[in-house]
């Protein structure tokens, strides 16, 4: 593939870290951002007039379950960190190397190495070999590692290798076969449920082990009041911890499962309204560092089932940006913070040179209209399946154009 033409984007509102959007232009060459602000186009440049659109970094989606390029591009996602829970588990350098190449050139997939062989939670996988094959972090997959000894050894080893460990925070002994959070809804529906405290239990243990080993730990989803309080306190003590969430847990409470709709069957399950409010507070005060899509497209064979028999997960890539922009409209966060959560923080966590509009970084750039209204429609999604819990919901914010490494990939 020949080198792309240099790119100059003019007439946009640039979203830069820590300040309100500023008018300006941007020049990219050789796949990198070369000039930010009053950039002047070269004679051979592809010049794009942003016509007042926001110029933002391409989204870095931390922890997706499928490589679903049309959905990612629709959602402005230029990099996706792939969970190891694949048909072939990412627990060997060969599968990691293959996954790392699978999206190029217009989507970069950052494989997350399985923490344990076959994600079984007992034997630590070949983390160093996988790191050198392209894994950007380690993940425990959909499950928590129940054995504290294994988790201790995993964290100390990952700390030595400089890899962050991304973990699922639910104490499996307490959750068992639960598909809902214990409370009025689960009781009314007669669904197997577990107390929300399953999350805090898992977080408390893993924080203690992270403090002990000095490891960097990232809780992929923190969804409860008590879990967030633990993370907040740990950060204050200087533990190297970060936390993420998906829009499901700041948009929805467990009343959404009321008609047994399996598109709301998620892991962790939807929580109480009080917990949803705590997530909003965590986004507002900085306890939560990352918003990701949790993209997990599931067809009818996994979803057109009784609630407890259905697989968890949502197709979230297309709704990640507009629902996060909803937080800006609601005054929960400001616009620069939205793109810290969606791009800069996950990029930093993975150690990739992207995620901000900044000279020298990879030219992953999106032009967005933050006010463009549209209706989420399960039947008309770009994703390979339409399992969105936000079906028929009106949202605002749409990607107008997307550039990966300075190349136009979606229009």
């Amino acid at each position: 593939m020949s080198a792309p033409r240099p790119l100059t984007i003019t007439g946009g509102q640039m979203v830069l870290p820590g300040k309100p959007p500023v008018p300006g232009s941007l020049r990219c060459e050789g796949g990198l951002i070369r000039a930010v602000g009053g950039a002047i186009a070269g004679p051979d440049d592809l010049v794009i007039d942003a016509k007042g659109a926001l110029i933002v970094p391409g989204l870095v989606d931390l922890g997706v379950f499928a490589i679903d390029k049309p959905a990612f591009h629709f959602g402005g996602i230029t990099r996706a960190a792939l969970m190891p829970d694949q048909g072939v588990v990412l627990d060997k350098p060969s599968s990691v190397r293959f996954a790392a190449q699978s999206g190029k050139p217009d989507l970069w997939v950052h494989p997350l190495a399985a923490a344990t062989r076959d994600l079984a939670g007992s034997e630590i996988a070949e983390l160093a070999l996988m790191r050198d094959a392209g894994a950007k972090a380690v993940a425990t997959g959909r499950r928590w590692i129940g054995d504290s000894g294994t988790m201790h050894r995993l964290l100390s080893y990952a700390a030595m290798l400089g890899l962050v460990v991304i973990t699922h925070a639910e104490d499996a002994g307490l959750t068992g076969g639960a598909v809902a959070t214990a409370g009025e809804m689960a009781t009314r529906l007669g669904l197997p449920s577990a107390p929300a405290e399953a999350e805090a239990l898992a977080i408390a243990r893993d924080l203690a082990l992270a403090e002990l080993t000095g490891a960097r730990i990232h809780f992929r989803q923190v969804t409860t009041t008590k879990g967030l309080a633990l993370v907040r306190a740990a950060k204050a003590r200087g533990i190297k911890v970060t936390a993420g969430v998906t829009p499901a847990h700041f948009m929805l409470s467990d009343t959404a499962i009321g008609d047994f709709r399996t598109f709301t069957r998620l892991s962790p399950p939807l929580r109480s309204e009080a917990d949803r409010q705590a997530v909003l507070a965590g986004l507002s005060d900085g306890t939560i560092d990352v918003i990701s899509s949790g993209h997990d497209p599931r067809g009818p064979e996994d979803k057109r089932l009784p609630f407890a028999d259905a697989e968890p997960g949502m197709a979230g890539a297309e709704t990640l940006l507009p629902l996060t922009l909803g937080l800006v409209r609601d005054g929960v966060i400001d616009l620069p913070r939205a793109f810290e959560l969606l791009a800069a923080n996950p990029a930093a966590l993975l150690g990739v040179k992207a995620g901000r509009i900044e000279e020298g970084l990879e030219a992953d750039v999106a032009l967005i209209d933050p006010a463009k209204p549209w209706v989420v429609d399960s039947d008309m999604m770009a994703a390979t399946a339409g399992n969105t819990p936000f079906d028929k919901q009106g949202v605002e914010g749409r990607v107008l154009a997307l550039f990966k490494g300075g190349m136009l990939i979606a229009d």
Partner: protein
Amino acid sequence: MTSPNLDAAGRYPAGSAAFPHRSLTGLAGLAPWEILFLLDEAEQWVELNRQPHKRNDRLAGLTIINAFFENSTRTLLSFEIAGKRLGADVVNMHAAQSSVKKGETLIDTAMTLNAMHADAIVIRHQSSGAVQLIADKVDCPVLNAGDGQHEHPTQGLLDALTIRHAKGAEFAGMRVTICGDILHSRVARSNIHCLTTLGAEVRVCAPPALMPADIEALKVHPFHDFDAALVGSDVVMMLRLQQERMSGQFIPSPREYRHLYGLTLDRLAKAKGDALVMHPGPMNRGVEIDSNVADLAQNASGARSAITTQVEMGVAIRMACLDVLTRRTRGLEGWA
């Protein structure tokens, strides 16, 4: 009980307005007069079923399919008898737990039944919400014969009818204690919705591990101490210990369970003198209920077991539900 939706003469809203639902998937959310309408409709079938000639052909020509995805003897038999006494062609489908992927089988089966032009489908399934899922996909009325731990609406109705026969029509002021495995019980949920809607005071009693979270939200009073719960109870409803639904240990042993929660004659004496004893069956005699309580004809103070009456009322209630839900298909005036 009176309702603003019954007119001065005690009549229901006319025609289909008396029960405006296509299917019966649960009792949650039903209005009091809708429940009372079904109970009143069942009375004629209680009478008929006591006659030597137990037949009314109003459903002649209709096909009713009993699709049971979970093993059942009593409920299936009750539905089959109900359909046959109304003259319908009743077909039973035992969809045993198959090795093929359950879910697709469920929807595919539903579509198959639908294509056979069933006029009503009665479904039992081991997963909560499964009946609603099928009801949304088929064109005919669907009757829930028990879905997971969610609801068993005809059981709730037949229990209310049994209570009404024994205690009279006034549910307000009546105290009903439901004791046992509330967590795993769809019978408990349907009874809670039914009886609270009709105005009864409902107590639920179980050890903590078998008590669902936030059960108070269903307008019941939770107890762990069975002796305390029994005080002043007009009706004592025992539930079966559903060990097949329990993953992990919920109680130390059946005899320990009986020690705390078994209904013995001594315990029954703590309830009202003329308390009515109920159990949806099948019973674990000597665990949740002693045989001399289960078989109690009537003691000196008037207490008695209504367990066989429940079975009798079950057929009548199911006849009423099949009749009411097929009225639209049959083009009855006011229902078509």
